[in-house]
């Protein structure tokens, strides 16, 4: 650390990180964890987490959970599934972790979101609905920056 190259991640490693990130996008609903992701690119979990954070500004675990919450939001908006069903459907194995993370990212617990959001995007073009309903990671960052 603190090397002269400014701690830049080598290009070859960035390519591996991109493959990890794409895999999260593709397989987030499966029981993925950081160890499995790291094995896929022959890195240790700790090394992967450090490099990923340097490249993308957040840990692979955080990115994975954000993808799951994003999908969960879409499923909850449909209103035909319970919070528990949605939790497992997006790849989370713990309802507690899911609810905590959901609340951190979205601002309300999943049960409240389910009740309130069902009608929120009615009449909105699909592309707009996707944009405006995406979890905003900066919301967290801002809160962390000024508690």
């Amino acid at each position: 650390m603190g090397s002269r190259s400014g701690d830049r991640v080598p290009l070859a490693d960035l390519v591996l990180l991109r493959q990890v990130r794409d895999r999260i996008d593709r397989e987030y609903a499966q029981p993925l964890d950081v160890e499995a992701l790291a094995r896929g690119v022959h890195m240790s979990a700790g090394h992967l987490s450090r490099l990923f954070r340097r490249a993308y500004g957040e840990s692979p675990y955080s990115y994975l959970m954000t993808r799951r919450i994003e999908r969960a939001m879409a499923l909850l908006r449909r209103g035909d599934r319970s919070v528990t069903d949605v939790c497992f459907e997006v790849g989370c194995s713990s309802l507690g972790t899911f609810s905590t993370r959901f609340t951190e990212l979205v601002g309300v617990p999943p049960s409240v979101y389910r009740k309130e959001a069902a009608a929120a995007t009615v009449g909105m073009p699909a592309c707009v609905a996707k944009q405006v309903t995406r979890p905003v990671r900066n919301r967290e960052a801002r809160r962390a920056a000024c508690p």
Partner: protein
Amino acid sequence: MDITIHSSFLPHTDADAALGFYRDALGFEVRNDVGYNGMRWLTVGPAGQPAVSVVLYPPEAEPGLTDEERRTVAEMMAKGTYARLLLAAEDVDATFARLAAGGVEVVEEPTDQPYGVRDCAVRDPAGNLLRIQQRR
């Protein structure tokens, strides 16, 4: 006004790899292949759409970039956050199956997206994201 889109640009890191992808995997025709100083510019496009091309260019050739900026562009390409293109196909699933069988880097298998399209996503050899959606 009768303006059309003539060419759009995507960066490449390796002209031969780019040809292998756009010509051999996607089936695009090669309309121009220009070399200069060891660098190559490839103009490609689908046969059925002769008036619209994609130019695959060497980003390092851009004049007026600092070394730092050049490095940042290379890093963003490698990590997959630099450039993208949206394509459409008559049968996304068949197209995807052919691409996957040809060994391209898969990002997402054909999926009905909550925003209303069926699409899939792959990366070209330079890391550019190509989404292919069902034509309607």
